[in-house]
């Protein structure tokens, strides 16, 4: 296990509000990691920083074996470097088919002219079949993705991330709004994905986190409060105080 993502000493301020405060997190490859924390703990901002949406005021964000700094890279460059991100709300291209959605995400040259003269290949088609199989949407490939159920859209989005073949997957609340059955399937997809790559899951739902059965990082007020197995962190009195205590109440 070697470190894939290293976030160290990162701070960011919005209009005087410190959203991230001297945050340091390491993620290895392969690894499945859950990030939990109360509202406003900085979970989404953490993802924004890693994916280049938000520029931190201070700190370092290094990625990969060579430790390339992600700061100053555009979102697209970061994505191409091997970081995939799933948004909180399912964001798929609703008036295109599932196949088109997946095809767009396939790891291929991303330049406009390469795309313009791109022709479908059998390998590509096979890869799409494979991904559809993985996320359980084989029957839905020709459907317009806007017609999919909420859970299916979530899976499709995860499938699109996998299609990019990223080394690090950032997944924001994948289980929100899912039925118990769907959650189970989601857990399976994520766990399988984490066998070869790093997967960071931000989640509210303790049950879901427990099912992931992985190392947990607790964020609070923009920095790491505790880290370890779920049982370890949930027994931490500070964590109970700031997070679990309140959610129980």
């Amino acid at each position, binding site marked *: 296990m070697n470190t894939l993502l290293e976030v160290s000493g990162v701070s960011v301020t*919005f209009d005087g509000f410190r959203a991230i405060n001297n945050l340091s997190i390491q993620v290895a490859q392969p690894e499945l990691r859950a990030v939990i924390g109360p509202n406003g703990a900085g979970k989404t901002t953490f993802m924004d920083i890693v994916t280049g949406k938000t520029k931190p005021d201070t700190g370092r964000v290094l990625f990969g074996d060579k430790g390339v700094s992600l700061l100053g890279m555009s979102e697209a460059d970061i994505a191409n470097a091997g970081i995939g991100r799933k948004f909180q709300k399912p964001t798929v291209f609703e008036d295109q088919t599932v196949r088109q959605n997946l095809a767009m995400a396939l790891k291929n040259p991303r330049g406009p002219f390469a795309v313009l003269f791109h022709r479908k290949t059998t390998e590509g088609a096979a890869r799409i079949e494979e991904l559809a199989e993985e996320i359980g949407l084989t029957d839905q490939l020709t459907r317009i993705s806007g017609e999919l159920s909420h859970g299916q859209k979530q899976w499709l989005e995860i499938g699109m991330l996998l299609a990019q073949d990223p080394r690090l997957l950032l997944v924001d609340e994948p289980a929100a709004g899912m039925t118990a059955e769907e959650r189970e399937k989601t857990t399976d997809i994520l766990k399988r994905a984490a066998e070869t790559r790093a997967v960071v899951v931000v989640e509210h739902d303790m049950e879901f986190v427990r099912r992931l059965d992985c190392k947990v990082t607790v964020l609070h007020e923009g920095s790491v409060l505790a880290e370890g197995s779920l049982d370890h962190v949930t027994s931490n009195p500070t964590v109970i105080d700031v997070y679990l205590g309140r959610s129980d109440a």
Partner: protein
Amino acid sequence: MLRPILFLVLFFGLAAPAYAPVHAQELTLQTILQENSDEITKPKRRTVSTALDALVASGLPQVTQFLEQWQDKGVWLREDDGLYFYASADGGDLTLTDIDTGAESTVPKDGFKQLKPNGGVRRVIATALVQFQLSDPDLARRETAVQSIARRPEASQLGPLLASVDGEPDAALKARKIQLANFLSASFAEDPADRIAAIESLSTDTSIEARAVLNQILNAKPDVAPRTDAGPEGNIARELKPGSDLSSEDAYAQLVEAGFAQAAITPAALREAIVSNVVEGKVGGVPTAQLNSQDNRVKAYTALAEDGIVPPFVTAEEREAAIEAHVFFEEYSEKDPAITTAALDALNSIETRVAAAQTVDLTLDALSLASIYFLAAIGLAITFGVMGVINMAHGEFIMMGAYTGYVIQLFVPDYTLSILIALPVAFAVTFGAGVAMERLVIRHLYHRPLETLLATFGISIALQQLAKNIFGTQARPLTSPAWLDGAWVVSDVIQISYIRIAIFVMALMFLALILFVLKRTRLGLEVRAVTQNPGMAASMGINPDRINMMTFGLGSGIAGIAGVAIGLYAKVTSEMGTDYIVQSFMTVVVGGVGNVWGTLAGASMIGFLQKGIEWFNPSNTLAAQTYMVLFIILFIQFRPKGIVALKGRAAAD
């Protein structure tokens, strides 16, 4: 006519002693006139002064009136006895007034002859009159006299003017007389030292007149002389270098005019000469078909010149050599270099001051423009900031406000009152229109901002055409109250019209009002809450629907008031909205969305920028606007969210 005469009578009653010569009692004006009857009846410009001197020397109080009447061709001669009368013709009759007693009578016109001094003589009379008028007890008459001197300054007026300065009771007029005396002595004083002193005293005077006086002294004529080591003679203003200061064509033309060179043969003249000398299809041995190049034409012409048919051709080299051999310069008409140097120094020092004053003036102009943009844009900024909606019909709301003002003036003729009524009514009308638009259209298009833009554009073209159908295409006036006419004049350079000041004050009032509404009222609190986080605001029990409606109404209402303000100084037409809408967008975009201060900053920046660019290139407002728009496009590159940008999650999308 009666008034001045009355004044004259009064004046001479008081002022006569000052002029009273010894034998005033025995003399009547008529006797003096008879003594100089030749000059009076048939005056000549050169000789009339003897008669005038005699009249002035008499010190009679009636002299001024006589001079005035004479100048105005109001003096008639009775041919029987050669007596002079004031008279006015009325059909075939004359109303006679006795020159000394003022007794009136009516007689037939026959036997009387009107004295008609020519223009030159009348000017001499006027000059003589000025010295009386300068000391007239009536302020208005003295002012008129001073004005007439200022209009047509002459050397002879300097003496009387200086003489009248000490006795001048009115402080302002005295200052004006001193100023004018300075102008006159700068130009006409006999002693160069006096002139230089006067010129130096002008160096703090930024008025246009003072600059005109100095420029008059510095008047220089272009001239040319053969180049010598000593340089040209005379009081030289500057040497002109052909090629940079004047074109070589002009330089050569000057040489020709001065007789130093032979006229160049222009291509047109060359052609003319050739065309008129075609012999058997050839000119100077060159076939006409070959005359389609300048070289061949010159060849043909030279051949003609060798035969002596046409003047010799001047080659470019010859012209250059001629220009080289001469020196081009401007020479002052004023011969004394000390005086021109002093005038130049004074002018430079004035120009420094004028530049400073212009900066102030420009700042005032820019401020007033900024306040117009602020008024036009603030409503837009509010709706854009709170609702993320671009209202393309905003300009038409401005127009609606202006037409409301116009309609109210049709019913309420008192301009002050009608404007006072128009402001709230315009607000109400456009508030209503805004609310109706929000309810009927915009409410259904939230989250589709581009479509809102287009739908409101549809409303905009419909409203514009509707206004055209109702009010016609020609501009309608929105008249400002009389007390807003005119301008606040600080100096010749700094002045600003009262309407612009009023608009500035209005913009300040609105700034205060909007800040108050937003920061100190419940509505403002709710509006700010919806701006920052609509979802959260809704969950706190704020009805976003109502807030949106109110905000839209408010924004539109302000546009209506802005319309009244803009209508006061610009024309009210159905297209006036389009003139402001793009600028308003710019203001909002540059300033940053959802913030009153941002709009203020944006309006100020655009106002100052526009005036600044216009100052660099005053002749071309179109170019100024082009550059401004380009600047804004570049500005957006560096601050895509405007000057005052919201940060954090609220700005994220």
